[in-house]
């Protein structure tokens, strides 16, 4: 029975998403109930999965009982359990916030949202390259519609750019998969890692090309430097709960990079061992620097958060490119923190924009917000966390990463990471004082935070203090995840050497 738990994070959102298709344009209350129940159940399931994975055993679920390497498998290890749990937590905050009224602005918000969750969870759990592509498409097509939820000129244009870029990305993903399949003859990740290690030297160039192409695709999803141009516009024009959920989308790309380039092209890959990481290092640093400049130049709160996401992407990828246990553990902790807090900041920017009337979320002096004390407090917590000031979780994540750098890496990493944090500090301080202090009196009869919005904000921004308090157990878990991630032999063995079906016990 416990074995079937692995497939539930995919089935549950699928079923609730389908349930919401039954009656179109029905009243919104049952949908909200289904969405909240399903997301909360997802959180519980994923928490159980995290506990299950913490035994250190890598378990898999063979769909249709076709054993690997032939069938499609879902793999549960510490990293995938962590990512699924993070997604569920973020989604619960976004769904709660959306219930305040954003879900009424277009048709079937909750159904699409659940389908997107299915895609994201699938991408985290799958152990098959082509299945990864399929789940990428599932989450993308749901995200296309969610991005344009509610309509509007800005959204359609940003949406078209996003769709066109991702279609090109999917085409490249397929080419890369074709090359990898053609050279290794398998699509199962564990099996591919074994085949790559024992590769015919003639085919080295070909598989290298495929691997780089794959990096471009994942880099597009993760918004690494030359491929990030879609991100600020798409994120800042998306409806707030959707933008909050999109905070995990860049992490899907980072997760894919992490998985593929530690497992398949990791240190066990013979001549191809870790050949991507040196490239990644420079691109990640450049992303970090550019994110800092972008944050300073943003003129809208939502745009500012989008560039803060870019900084976090740079930080995470620097960690990936260092490819040792300590930086990987640090980046996993930082990933939890940054996903939740940037999701929370998107919600907050929307709440501020709504209370300021015409000025919206633009960083200009205007009417004050209706509830300056409450929103100010949220903004303060969010800003302190995202910049990385002690005592909240951002500081812990960044300190862990800085501490993990080798002396040869320190000059670049320390200077760029600290400078981009400084840029964030300056920008957040400036926009905070403009929005809250250079403002006129708020309209005391203006719109106030609805309970659902408050719940969403507390859930996502309140996660940061909780992350600092629970830093001990969480870092223990991320340390163990990093160790497990680098142990590619154990992964391959867990998937390939057992003949007992995953589903029949």
């Amino acid at each position, binding site marked *: 029975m416990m074995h079937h738990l692995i497939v539930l994070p995919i089935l549950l959102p699928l079923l609730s998403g389908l349930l919401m298709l039954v009656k179109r344009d029905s009243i919104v209350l049952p949908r909200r109930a289904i969405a909240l129940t399903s997301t909360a159940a997802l959180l519980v399931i994923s928490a159980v999965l995290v506990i299950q994975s913490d035994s250190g055993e890598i378990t898999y679920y063979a769909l249709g009982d076709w054993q690997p390497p032939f069938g499609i498998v879902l793999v549960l290890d510490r990293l995938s359990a962590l990512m699924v749990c993070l997604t569920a937590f973020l989604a619960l905050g976004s769904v709660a916030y959306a219930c305040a009224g954003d879900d009424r602005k277009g048709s079937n918000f909750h159904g699409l949202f659940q389908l997107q969750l299915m895609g994201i969870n699938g991408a985290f759990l799958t152990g098959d390259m082509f299945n990864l592509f399929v789940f990428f*498409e599932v989450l993308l097509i749901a995200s296309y519609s969610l991005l344009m939820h509610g309509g509007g*000129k800005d959204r*359609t*244009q940003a949406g*078209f750019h996003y769709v066109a870029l991702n279609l090109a990305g*999917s085409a490249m993903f397929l080419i890369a998969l074709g090359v990898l*399949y053609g050279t290794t003859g398998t699509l199962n990740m564990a099996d591919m890692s074994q085949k790559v290690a024992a590769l015919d030297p003639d085919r080295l160039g070909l598989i290298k090309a495929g691997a780089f192409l794959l990096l471009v695709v994942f880099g597009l999803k993760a918004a690494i430097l030359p491929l990030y141009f879609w991100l600020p516009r798409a994120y800042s024009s998306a409806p707030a709960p959707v933008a909050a959920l999109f905070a995990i989308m860049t992490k899907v790309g980072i997760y894919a990079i992490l998985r593929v380039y530690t497992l398949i092209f990791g240190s066990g890959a013979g001549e191809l061992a870790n050949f991507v990481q040196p490239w990644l290092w420079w691109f990640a640093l450049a992303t970090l620097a550019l994110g800092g400049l972008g944050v300073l130049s943003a003129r809208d709160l939502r745009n500012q958060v989008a560039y803060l996401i870019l900084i976090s992407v740079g930080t995470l990828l620097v960690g990936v490119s260092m490819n040792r246990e300590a930086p990987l553990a640090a980046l996993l902790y930082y990933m939890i923190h940054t996903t939740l807090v940037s999701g929370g900041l998107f919600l907050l920017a929307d709440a501020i924009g709504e209370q300021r009337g015409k000025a919206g979320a633009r960083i200009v002096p205007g009417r004050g917000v209706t509830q300056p004390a409450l929103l100010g407090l949220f903004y303060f917590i969010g800003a302190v966390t995202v910049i990385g000031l002690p005592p909240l979780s951002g500081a812990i994540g960044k300190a862990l990463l800085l501490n993990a750098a080798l002396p040869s890496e320190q000059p670049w990493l320390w200077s760029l990471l600290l400078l981009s944090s400084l840029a964030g500090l300056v920008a957040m301080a400036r926009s905070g004082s403009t929005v809250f202090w250079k403002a006129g009196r708020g309209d005391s009869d203006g719109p106030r935070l609805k309970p659902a919005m408050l719940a969403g904000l507390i859930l996502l921004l309140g996660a940061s203090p909780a992350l600092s308090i629970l830093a001990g157990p969480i870092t223990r878990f991320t340390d163990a995840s990093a160790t497990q991630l680098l142990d590619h032999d154990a992964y391959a063995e867990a998937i390939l050497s057992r003949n007992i079906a995953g589903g029949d016990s």
Partner: protein
Amino acid sequence: MEALYATVTGFLAASGLYLALRGRTFPVVVGLTLLSYAVNLFLFSTGGLTTNGAAVIREGVTDYADPLPQALVLTAIVIGFAMTAFSVILAMRVRGDQGSDQVNDQRGEEPKEEKS
């Protein structure tokens, strides 16, 4: 056969790429469609090009066609089809919302077009 196949695929991909880089939404959509055709052909060939390969296991047959690329192509075609349909609708929506089918319409100087 390989050379011809490769040329055709490459030509399709090049045409698709060229069109996808154009400035109007319609050529972009057509370009992406061509690109996905090229990708489908490419995927189809990843198992190696063979003729007269048996698809089903039978006694006395040694020459089999690789079944996996066919399954992959089928999936890719279905997904590509859905995506193309979506992007066509989206391109029309962009055209309707902005009154122009430029991909990068500059804000503040939208051309006012008469509805015909």
